[in-house]
């Protein structure tokens, strides 16, 4: 074979980049169907209001308008479902108020969709929407996370105290006992700031109905088209699943925000049949700010009990998590299952207890955003550990070392079993390449320039590759969490891979092709990867939680193994040998110990032209699929070091150096992995320094455009030093991979904040929340100097 093997482990340039870089990608908004019409949503200007009446007469009569729909028209259909049932400490199920596709009696956040106008053009639809008269009775808004429980107003009648659930994990009495005998307790209050996702491609949908065969086609910006279809057909619209095709073509970034079933595409599918025309909607950027599910938004207290040697005895956490106005698709499991189960971090803390109160507010729904629960856990642990080190005057790296988990598998007190890891290795590596020894000299140099220099660490762990479906089910998941893959070998030996994973920036078309080409001994260009279409791909749970390679990749490997197994039978027949005597290496089936062999393509041809073929024992054709349900999460981990310079005059923070050392297990494409880490670091640094979603007390979004919501730019970031250690391969998937998509966003915020707090320690600053904007840093310096 022509291929240079192995392909795994090589930094191969991405197959998909030619089309992206030349503008040849096909995004949802690029698709225009015959008889295309356009939708525009009228959205609530109020955070909380009762709808007394809606008058659509003028809008209906406006030029180009085909239809106007309100909540009354959709009253017969279900609400948007939540995919995870969380139960409160007392055993009661979480409160699940209806999330209507179009507002019914009330609006509950600014941007809540009130009406859909369908017209011949976007401009006509927008102009007509402006003619709809809604008589609102404004109600007091519930906005603040920490005080939502005490608010005088209820977002939903079903939850008069605005509490969706109060959930807990861990052994409370063991934790209490450990605190009673602690030599030292570190306490801090932590806010994990609300973020707005900001994928470069706004959400979009184009829904069509065909009377000819009574079927629907939906193009949509989705990270998981099969899940989108299942939720929409089975839980909301009551449509036959097999008559609905969902296509997520090229998608320009998701970061979690495109996992969910949203109201807009649901309304479009419903309306497409009534209007009899395909309807397209593409969010304007201001709609994205108001309606893409937001991320994070926790208010927590953490208490860490230590013995006199700095050994962690117990961790006690209370978190209030803001869910926003409605339960988004996975909202309930983010601040619980994906958060509190990670609170052990890299440390052998024997007892942990965490209580989470999740509240409704009159704000945009909150759901998973790159990292989803794990950044919140990591931030809380790593800020706490660093503060403990400062209080005890122990070197922060040394304190971590004293508490690292060192034997695997490790069953944590919050329900996870880490299969493997080597935290000492990533810490040692990062201390080395970050030249931590040289820090004092750099600090002195900064001081000469009037700048305060600080250094901060973060040792993160994440649980990826979710998950075993049975465990998830026991924890409240209402869906499976496996993945599906299919290998279609063509008669010429070329291969098309169909995966239920979805690529929206991750580079699956390259990485998955490397895996398959390597296993089959083919050239990379002989393998094509297809995804994102329920009409092509057998099934899929989609891409989120850094699961694509660990779960989706494994499903593909299993299908490849079936191809090889069948190929061996065919080759045995062709080579007149026993099946057990056939070995498959480098694209060739060979009789062991001889030079008698058949190339993969010859075997493929025989399967499709079965003249000389064991038809009595074997079906013709060479096409296999596999479903893979992992037996455990994967546990990527790493150590990050950040150095900052703070201008005491202005509060401005500059990241001077940022060094990352990650253990992702085996790495298929180091260039793509490095790119993923870079992107994650940029987002994490964005959260730490720049990004903060702010509502005023009336629930108006003050940061609803790029004028006020600061995304990180190239000039805000240093040149990263990123290092992937040889690592500890995952023990329970055949590729030994763990996932890398979220690590940077998980590990970096505490490293940045710890560095800033280190820089400001001499000024007496002990409390600082993200984002550490110049204004906020200046305020902290002022407060400490009083």
């Amino acid at each position, binding site marked *: 074979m022509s291929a240079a093997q192995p392909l795994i482990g090589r930094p191969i340039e991405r197959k998909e980049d030619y089309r992206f870089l030349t503008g040849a990608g096909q995004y949802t908004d690029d698709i225009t169907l015959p008889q295309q019409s356009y939708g525009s949503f009228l959205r609530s200007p109020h955070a909380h209001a009762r709808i007394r009446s809606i008058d659509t007469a003028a809008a209906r009569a406006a030029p180009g308008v085909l239809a106007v729909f309100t909540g009354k028209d959709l009253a017969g259909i279900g609400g948007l479902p939540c995919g995870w049932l969380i139960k409160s400490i007392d055993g009661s199920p979480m409160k699940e108020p209806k999330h209507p596709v179009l507002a019914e009696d009330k609006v509950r956040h600014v941007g809540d969709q009130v009406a859909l106008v369908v017209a011949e053009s976007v*401009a*006509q639809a927008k*102009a007509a929407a402006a003619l709809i008269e809604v008589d609102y009775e404004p109600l007091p808004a519930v906005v603040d996370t920490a005080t939502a429980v005490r608010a005088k107003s209820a977002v939903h009648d079903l939850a008069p105290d605005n509490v969706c659930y109060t959930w807990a994990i861990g052994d409370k009495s063991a934790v209490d006992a450990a605190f009673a005998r602690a030599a030292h307790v570190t306490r801090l209050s932590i806010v994990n700031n609300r973020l707005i996702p900001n994928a470069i491609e706004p959400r979009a949908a184009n829904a069509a109905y065909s009377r000819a065969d009574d079927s629907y086609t939906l193009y949509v910006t989705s990270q998981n088209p099969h899940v989108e279809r299942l939720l929409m057909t089975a839980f909301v619209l009551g449509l036959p699943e097999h008559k609905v095709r969902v296509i997520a073509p090229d998608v320009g970034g998701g970061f979690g925000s495109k996992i969910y079933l949203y109201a807009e595409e649901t309304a479009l599918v419903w309306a497409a049949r009534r209007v009899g025309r395909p309807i397209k909607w593409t969010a304007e950027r*201001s709609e994205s700010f108001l309606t893409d599910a937001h991320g994070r938004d926790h208010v927590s207290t953490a208490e860490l009990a230590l013995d006199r040697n700095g050994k962690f005895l117990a961790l006690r956490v209370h978190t209030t998590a803001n869910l926003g106005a409605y339960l988004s698709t996975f909202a309930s499991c983010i601040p619980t299952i994906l958060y509190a189960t990670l609170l052990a971090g890299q440390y052998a803390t024997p007892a942990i207890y965490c209580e989470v109160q999740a509240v409704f507010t009159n704000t945009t729904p909150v759901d998973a955003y790159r990292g989803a629960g794990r950044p919140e856990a990591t931030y809380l642990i790593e800020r706490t550990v660093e503060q403990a080190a400062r209080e005890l005057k122990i070197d922060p790296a040394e304190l971590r070392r004293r508490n690292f988990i060192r034997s695997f598998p490790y069953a944590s007190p919050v329900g996870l079993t880490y299969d493997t890891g080597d935290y000492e290795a990533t810490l040692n590596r990062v201390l080395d390449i970050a030249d931590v020894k040289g820090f004092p000299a750099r600090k002195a140099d900064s001081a000469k320039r009037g700048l305060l220099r600080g250094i901060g660490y973060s040792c993160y762990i994440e649980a990826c590759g979710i998950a075993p479906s049975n465990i998830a089910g026991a924890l409240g998941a209402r869906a499976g969490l496996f993945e599906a893959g299919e290998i279609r070998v063509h008669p010429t030996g070329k291969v098309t891979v169909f995966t239920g994973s979805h690529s929206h920036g991750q580079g699956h078309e390259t990485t998955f092709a490397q895996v398959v080409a390597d296993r089959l001994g083919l050239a990379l260009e002989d393998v094509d990867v297809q995804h994102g279409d329920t009409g092509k791909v057998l099934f899929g749970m989609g891409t989120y939680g850094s699961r694509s390679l660990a779960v989706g990749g494994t499903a593909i490997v299993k299908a490849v193994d079936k191809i090889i197994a069948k190929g061996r039978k065919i080759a045995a027949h062709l080579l007149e040998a026993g099946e057990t005597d056939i070995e498959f290496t480098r694209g060739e089936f060979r009789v062991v110990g001889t030079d008698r062999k058949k190339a993969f393509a010859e075997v493929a041809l025989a399967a499709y032209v079965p003249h000389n073929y064991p038809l009595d024992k074997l079906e013709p054709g060479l096409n296999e699929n596999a479903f893979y349900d992992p037996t455990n999460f994967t546990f990527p981990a790493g150590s990050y070091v950040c150095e900052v310079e703070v201008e005491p*005059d*202005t509060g*401005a923070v500059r990241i001077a150096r940022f060094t990352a050392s990650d253990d992702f297990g085996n790495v298929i494409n180091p260039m793509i992995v490095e790119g993923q880490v870079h992107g994650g670091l940029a987002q994490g640094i964005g959260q730490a320094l*720049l990004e903060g979603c*702010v509502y005023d007390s009336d629930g108006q979004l*003050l*940061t609803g455009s*790029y*004028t*006020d*919501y*600061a*995304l990180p730019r190239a000039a805000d970031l240093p040149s990263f030093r990123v290092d992937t250690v040889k690592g500890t391969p995952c023990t329970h998937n055949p590729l030994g991979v763990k996932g890398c998509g979220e690590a940077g966003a998980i590990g970096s915020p505490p490293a940045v904040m710890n560095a800033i707090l280190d820089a400001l320690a001499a000024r007496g600053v002990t409390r600082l929340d993200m984002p550490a*904007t*110049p*204004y906020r840093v*200046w*305020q902290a310096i002022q407060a400490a100097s009083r």
Partner: protein
Amino acid sequence: MSDLSYHRPASLAEAARLAAADPDARVIAGGQSVLPSMRLGLLAPSALIDLAGIAELSGIRSDGRTLTIGAMTTHAAVAASKDVRAPLPALARLAQGIGDGQVRNRGTVGGSVANSDPAADYPAAVLALNATIRTNARSIPADRFFTGLFATALEPGELIGTLDFPLGAQAGYAKFPQPASRFALVGVFVARTSNGVRVAVTGAGPCAFRATALEEALTRSFTTEACNGVRVASDTLSSDVHGSAEYRAHLIPVLARRAVQQILA
């Protein structure tokens, strides 16, 4: 959808006539404020009077005593001009620090000054350098030009032709960007002339203004230390999510010191 007329006059006089004839018309220079405002529905003019076809409004010339910049000169052109960079490098740097490349290629000096955006850069330079704003009707000294939030001394139908900057000053401009928009959260322009020091501030209040306490301190002693003791009152300054009035007041002497440093360097 509203109807919108479009005019492209060939002279300033014709533009002024068109503007005077229709109070709902809007003059458009580079369009960097007008077009986004229209797109957001904040502005719905009956007509746009595009100044791009008026040759007399473009260009930069200098007679050695006065630098004359036509109202339709783009930020990019100001930043690149030898006639600006040699005598007033701070003004060229100011222009180079506005927005991004696209904005600098479209946005104009006259548009920025006429708009009196509270966070725009040019008004600080115009005030500190004591420029004269020449319109189709008269000459307005900088000190009487900026009157409030998006408000100037321009009468309806009155259009800026050129900005005349007296040469001979040493100047420095220090800008502290608002983290999201990169407009000036506070910008301080310091000009040192034989007649004393002028200090103008943008970003901090409803419109650009002079910081007289700093001017006095720097006129007495043109040193960075002179800025340190100056306290700026915060009561008329702006507050928003990016900074309180107190923070802005604090930044003014800090940035003045940096501008002074540029001059002394």
